[in-house]
C-alpha cells in the first residue's frame, strides 16, 4: 500500500476530515510529512485498529479481586464560554450550581442519595471560598450533605474526582458528586498590601485622632490595586512564556502549533455539529438567554493563524493567542458511585474509573510536561501498554505544550535522562487523540476541565466501542495527572 493510500484509509476510517472545512488540516498535516511528530505517529499505525478486538489487549479488564469497582454514572458540564460573554454577571457558585442541577436532572438522582460533594476551583472568589458547599446548597442538595473544595490548578477537578474515588474505595461513601468550576469573568482584585494594612489598622483604631492619622498616611501609591498573579509563584514566569520556551526546547515549530490548534478547532466543530458533545447541558442564564453551546470553537484558516503575533516571547516566540487555550467560564460535574450502589439504584454506569497517578516535576523548565511523566506511570500501574488504549483525552493547555509532550513521549533519550525509565512510552496515535476537540477549542475553565476529559473518554469509548481510555493533564506548579478509564460493558 502506498503511503498516501494508507493515509486515506486512515483518515476515512476515522472520518477525520470528511467535512470540507477540515480538509485544510489534513492537507497541512500531509505537507508536513514525516517532519511533524503528528505524521510520524500516524505512519506507525499501518492499519486502523479494530476496536472490537478485546482479545488483543494486555488485560481483559482492570478489575482487581478485593478492590471495589468504582464507576462513573454520568457527567455533565455547562457550555464553556469565553470569559466576559454571557456568563459575565454571574458568580462562580452560580455556574457550579448550574452544573450540579444539570447532573441531578440528567441522572434523576434523589438529592439525599448523595453522601458527599467535592468541587474544584482555582481562582477563588473570596466570598465563597468553599464554593462546593455554597453551590450544593444553592443547587438544592440536602443541607445534610457535606461538601469541600479542592484546588490543584488545572487538575483541580481531577483531584475532586480522585478524592471521591478515595472516599468510596475506603468505604466511607457510596455516592459522591465531584466537579469543578472556573469563572474568569470576575477575579478578585485586591487593594495593595499597604492599603490593606491601613484599612485593617483602621478597624482597630479607637480614637478619632488615631483614625485620622491613619487616613492621613494613605498615599496615592497605596491606591494602585493588586491584580491576581498570572505567573507561577515559584518562578514568576507566566505559563504562556514557559510554554513558548518548552516548545522551543523541543523544536516545535509555529506551523506545527498552528496546525494542531486548527485540528482542535476543526474536530471540536465537527463534534459539536455532530451532536457528540452530549455532556453539555442547557443553562438559562439569569437575565440572559438559554445557553446550550460552547462559544469558543472557531475554525480558522492557516493563513489567518499565521498572521497572529506571538503573545508571550516577543518578537520571535511561537505561542500565539490562537494556539493557546483561552480564558473560559464554565463548570462541570460527575456522579461517581460504587458499582454495587449504582446497580442497586438502577443506573447503567458509563465507565469504570481505574488507576490514576499524580506527578510533579521542575516548575521552571518542565512546567507543562505532566502528561509525559504521568502516562507511563499510570500505564505501568494498570499493566497496560500504550497500544491497549483506545481513547486518549489530553488537556490542551497550549498547542506547543501538547506537541512538546508528544515529542518527549517519543524520545528514549528524554525517558532515560529525565524520567529514569529504560525506554520511551511512545506518543499516542493522533487518530485516537482528542478527536472531539480539546481545551484549545472547547475552552479551558481551569478547574472544570478534568471532569470534561473523563466524561468525554467515557462517551468516546461508548461511541467508538473501545475498552480503555486515558486521561492526562498538566497543571501549574509543574504537576500532572493521568487516569485510566475502562468502558462499562454495554
Amino acid at each position, binding site marked *: 500500500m502506498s503511503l498516501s493510500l494508507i493515509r486515506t484509509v486512515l483518515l476515512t476510517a476515522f472520518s477525520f476530515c470528511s467535512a470540507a472545512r477540515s480538509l485544510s488540516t489534513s492537507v497541512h498535516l500531509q505537507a508536513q510529512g514525516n517532519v511533524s511528530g503528528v505524521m510520524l505517529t500516524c505512519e506507525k499505525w499501518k492499519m486502523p485498529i479494530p476496536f472490537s478486538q478485546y482479545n488483543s489487549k494486555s488485560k481483559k479488564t482492570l478489575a482487581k479481586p478485593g478492590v471495589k469497582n468504582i464507576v462513573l454514572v454520568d457527567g455533565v458540564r455547562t457550555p464553556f464560554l469565553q470569559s466576559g460573554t454571557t456568563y459575565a454577571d454571574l458568580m462562580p457558585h452560580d455556574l457550579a450550581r448550574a452544573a450540579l442541577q444539570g447532573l441531578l436532572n440528567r441522572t434523576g438522582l434523589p438529592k439525599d442519595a448523595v453522601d458527599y460533594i467535592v468541587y474544584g476551583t482555582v481562582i477563588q472568589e473570596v466570598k465563597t471560598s468553599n464554593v462546593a458547599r455554597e453551590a450544593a446548597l444553592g443547587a438544592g442538595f440536602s443541607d445534610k450533605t457535606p461538601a469541600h473544595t479542592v484546588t490543584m490548578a488545572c487538575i483541580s477537578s481531577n483531584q475532586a474526582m480522585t478524592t471521591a474515588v478515595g472516599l468510596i474505595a475506603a468505604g466511607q461513601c457510596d455516592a459522591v458528586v465531584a466537579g469543578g468550576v472556573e469563572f474568569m469573568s470576575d477575579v478578585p482584585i485586591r487593594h495593595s498590601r499597604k492599603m490593606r494594612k491601613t484599612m485593617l489598622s483602621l478597624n482597630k483604631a479607637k480614637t478619632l485622632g488615631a483614625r485620622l492619622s491613619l487616613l492621613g498616611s494613605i498615599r496615592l501609591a497605596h491606591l494602585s490595586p493588586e491584580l491576581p498573579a498570572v505567573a507561577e*509563584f*515559584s*518562578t*514568576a514566569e507566566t505559563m504562556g*512564556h514557559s510554554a*513558548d*520556551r*518548552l516548545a*522551543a*526546547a*523541543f*523544536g516545535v515549530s509555529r506551523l506545527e502549533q498552528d496546525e494542531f490548534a486548527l485540528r482542535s478547532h476543526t474536530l471540536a466543530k465537527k463534534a459539536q455539529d455532530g451532536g457528540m458533545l452530549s455532556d453539555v447541558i442547557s443553562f438559562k442564564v439569569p437575565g440572559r438567554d438559554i445557553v446550550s453551546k460552547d462559544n469558543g470553537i472557531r475554525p480558522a484558516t492557516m493563513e489567518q493563524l499565521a498572521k497572529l503575533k506571538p503573545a508571550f*516571547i516577543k*518578537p*520571535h516566540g511561537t505561542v500565539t493567542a490562537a494556539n493557546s487555550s483561552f480564558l473560559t467560564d464554565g463548570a462541570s460535574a460527575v456522579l461517581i458511585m460504587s458499582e454495587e450502589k449504582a446497580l442497586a439504584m438502577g443506573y447503567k454506569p458509563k465507565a469504570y474509573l481505574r488507576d490514576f497517578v499524580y506527578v510533579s516535576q*521542575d516548575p*521552571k*523548565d*518542565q512546567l507543562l510536561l505532566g502528561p509525559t511523566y504521568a502516562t507511563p506511570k499510570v500505564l505501568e500501574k494498570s499493566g497496560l501498554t500504550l497500544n491497549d488504549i483506545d481513547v486518549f483525552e489530553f488537556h490542551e493547555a497550549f498547542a506547543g505544550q501538547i506537541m*512538546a509532550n508528544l*515529542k*518527549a513521549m517519543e*524520545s528514549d*533519550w*528524554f525517558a532515560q*535522562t*529525565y524520567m529514569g525509565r529504560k525506554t520511551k512510552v511512545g506518543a499516542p496515535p493522533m487518530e485516537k487523540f482528542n478527536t472531539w476537540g480539546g481545551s484549545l477549542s472547547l475552552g479551558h475553565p481551569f478547574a472544570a476541565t478534568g471532569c470534561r476529559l473523563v466524561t468525554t473518554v467515557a462517551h468516546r469509548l461508548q461511541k467508538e466501542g473501545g475498552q480503555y481510555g486515558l486521561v492526562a493533564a498538566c497543571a501549574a506548579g509543574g504537576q500532572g495527572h493521568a487516569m485510566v478509564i475502562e468502558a462499562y460493558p454495554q
Partner: protein
Amino acid sequence: MASARLLVTRSGCTALKAITGHGQRSLSVSSAVLARTHVSYEVKDNVAVVRINDPTSKVNTLGRHMQAELVEVINEIWGNSAVKSAVLISSKPGSFIAGADLNMFQACKTAEEVSYLLQAGQKMFEQIEKSPIPFVAAINGSCLGGGLEFAIACQYRIATKSKKTILGTPEVMLGLLPGAGGTQRLPKMVGLPAAFDMMLTGRNIKADKAKKMGLVHQLVEPLGPGLKISKKRTFLPARPLAVDFAKGLAGKKVRVEKKKGLMQKVQDFVMGLPPVRKQIYKTVHNKVMKQSKGLYPAPLKIIECVQTGIEKGNAAGYLSESENFGKLAMTSVSRALIGLFYGQVACKKNHFGQPEREVKKLAVLGAGLMGAGIAQVTIDKGVATILKDTTEEGLARGQQQVYKGLNDKTKKKSLTTFERDRIMSLLSGQLDYRGFENADMVIEAVFEDLSIKHKVVKEVEAVIPPHCIFATNTSALPIKDIAAASKRPEKLIGMHYFSPVDKMQLLEIITTNKTSKDTTASAVAVGLKQGKVIIVVGDGPGFYTTRCLAPMLAEAVRALQEGVGPKKLDSLTTGFGFPVGAATLADEVGIDVAAHVAEDLGKAFGTRFGGGNVEVLKMMVQKGFKGRKSGKGCYVYGAKSKEKKVNSGAEDILKSFKLTAPPAVSADEDIQYRLVSRFVNEAVLCLQEGILPDPVQGDIGAVFGLGFPPCLGGPFRFVDSYGADKLVQKMKHFEEAYGNQFTPCQLLLDHAKDSSKRFHK
C-alpha cells in the same frame, strides 16, 4: 574586583600560544589549507555563522592568534559574494569573549607597542562597524572588555537571558580603559551618563538590563531540557534566532534603529548642548577625584578619551584611546591591579587536591555576627547548615541576620523570594547538638576566649563522627593552643573569616603542624564553595592578617596620642589608598577586639608591637566606646547626619594619654609611612618566618582582608615598586625617633641591599 571572569588564561600557556600563533601565521603563507584553531565558519542560506572557540582555555580571549584568525575569516566572508550577513557566536557554553588577552599587553615593553596593538584591534572593529553586510553578535555568557567592544561594533546584538550572560567593561578595575573603541562607541550607544557608569565602575550588566539600556537588541530565553543530548542547550536557541535576524537584516526586514521614546529624545537634546556636556565631564571628574583621591589614573583617562571623541571627533578619540591605554598599561597602578587579579585567580584554586569527602552538611557554632555570616554564605551555595547557639535570643538574632542578608538580595533582585525561601530551608537553627552526628564539618565561631574554645572542642568532639573536621574561626588565638584540647588535632584547622562575612571576600585558613593535608583540602574546598578568595598560612599569634594589622593600629593609636585627630588620621590613611581610614577601621573592627588583640600580640611579640598605649583602648572599652557596634568609638554613630562626629569622650581619653610628637617624623607623609611601613615590615617578616607561603598570598590577604591600598597591589608589590632600600631608609629614620618597632626585618634588609631581589618577578 569583579573581574574574575575577565581572563583565566595561565601565563605559561599563553606564552606558548603566542609563539605557535606566530608560527602558524608565517606558515600560512606557504600552506593554503592550514586549519584554523580558534575561529571557524560555515555558510548556509547566505548567512555566515562564525564560531569562536579558544581550544586552550575555558573562556575565549582576544589574543594575537584569535585576532589574526578573525581578520582572516572576516576577509574571506567579505570576499564571498554569496554571504549576505554574518552571525558571530561562541562555541563555549559560558563565554562569548571574556576580554582581551592580558599577557599580550604585559609582554610589551613600551606604551607605543601597546598602542600599536590596540590600533590593530580598533581598525578591525571599525571595519566590522562599516561592514557592507550586517554582523549579528549572539551573546551567551561573559561578554566583557574587548569582547563587548567587538559585540558593539556589530550591527545587531542578541543575548541569552541567563544568569551567566554578563556584559561590561571591567578594564578600569585593572587600571586600564576600554581600548578597542569602547570609549568611543559606548557613549553613542547608551548615552553619556550610562557609558560613564559602565566604564568607570566596570560593573557587570545582566542581559535584561543590557536590553533596557540599548546595549543589546534582543533577548533569547534560555531553554530547559528538550530532545538534544547537550548541556549547551541554553545557548543553542541563540544561534537559529541570530541567523533569522541576520537574514532579516540582510533583507532589510529587521530594522536596527529602535524608535526613540520621548525621554530619550529629551535626553539626546540635552546631551547635544555643549555646556551640559561640559558640566557632566566636570561632575564626573570631581566624583572620580573624590573617590579615587587621584591615586588611580585610569578613570581620569577614560573621561579624557570620551571627551576627546565627542568634542573632537572619532579619529582624535580613537587616537586618544589607544595612546592612553598604552600609557596606562605602563603604570605601576595597572601592574598592581593586574597582579591582584592574577593573585585572586590563583587564590580561587584548591592547591591541596581533592578532599576525600565532600562537605555536605556543615554545622556552625555560635550565631553571632560571624557565625550567622558563615551560615549565610554556606546555605547560599546549597549546603545544609546547622546554626547552633546557646541562647534563644542569640539564635533568633543570628537567624534574622541570615534572613536579612538573603532578603536584601531579593530587594536587589539577584534572588527571587522563592529562591530565598529555598535557601533558608537549608538552615537549621537549634540550641542542642542534634544532627551533629551527621556533620562533615563544624566551624565554631564562639567568643574569643581560650577556655570557652576548649570547652567547645571537647563538647563537639563528643558528638561528631570521626571524619568530621573541626574548624575554628578566630582572629588571633593560635590554633595549636585551641588544638591542645582536641583528641584529633589532625582534623582541626583555623578558618579566619572577615566581617561582614557575606561581603568580605577573604578567608584565611590556618594550619598547624598537626593538621592533615586532607583537612586543609577540605577547608579550602568549603571556602571556595562559599565564594571566598583563600590564603593558607601557618600558625602563630595573629597568623598573617591580624599580625600585620596590629602594628599599624598600634601606630595609629600612637598618632592619636600625639594629637592627630581621628578625622585627620582617616584622611591620611585614605589619602594613601586605604579604602577605610585607620580610626574608622578600629571602630569597625571593634575597640574591644583591637584592645584584646593588641594585648595578646603585645605579649607574644614584645616591643615590636608597641607604639601606642594599649591602655588607651582599654580605657575606651571601659567607658563603653567599643566602636560602631556600641554606638561610640572614635566617632559617634547613630546620628542621621552624614557628617561623622568625633566622640569627645574618646578625645578626652586621648588627651589624658597625650604624648609629644617628635617633629622630625610627624609630617603628614611621615605619619602615612609610619603606619604603612610597620604593616609592610610585619608582612615581610611573616614571609621570612614561613607563616606566609608566598608573596602572592601575602598581597591578596592584605588587600582583600585588610584593605591595603589596591593601587599598590599589596605590601610585597609595594616594596618592589617603591624600593626596599627607600623603605628601609625611612624605617631607620623612624627607628631613631621611636625605637625597635621600626627595625626592618632581615628579609627586607636583604632586598634593600640587593635591588635585583624582588618579591614578584
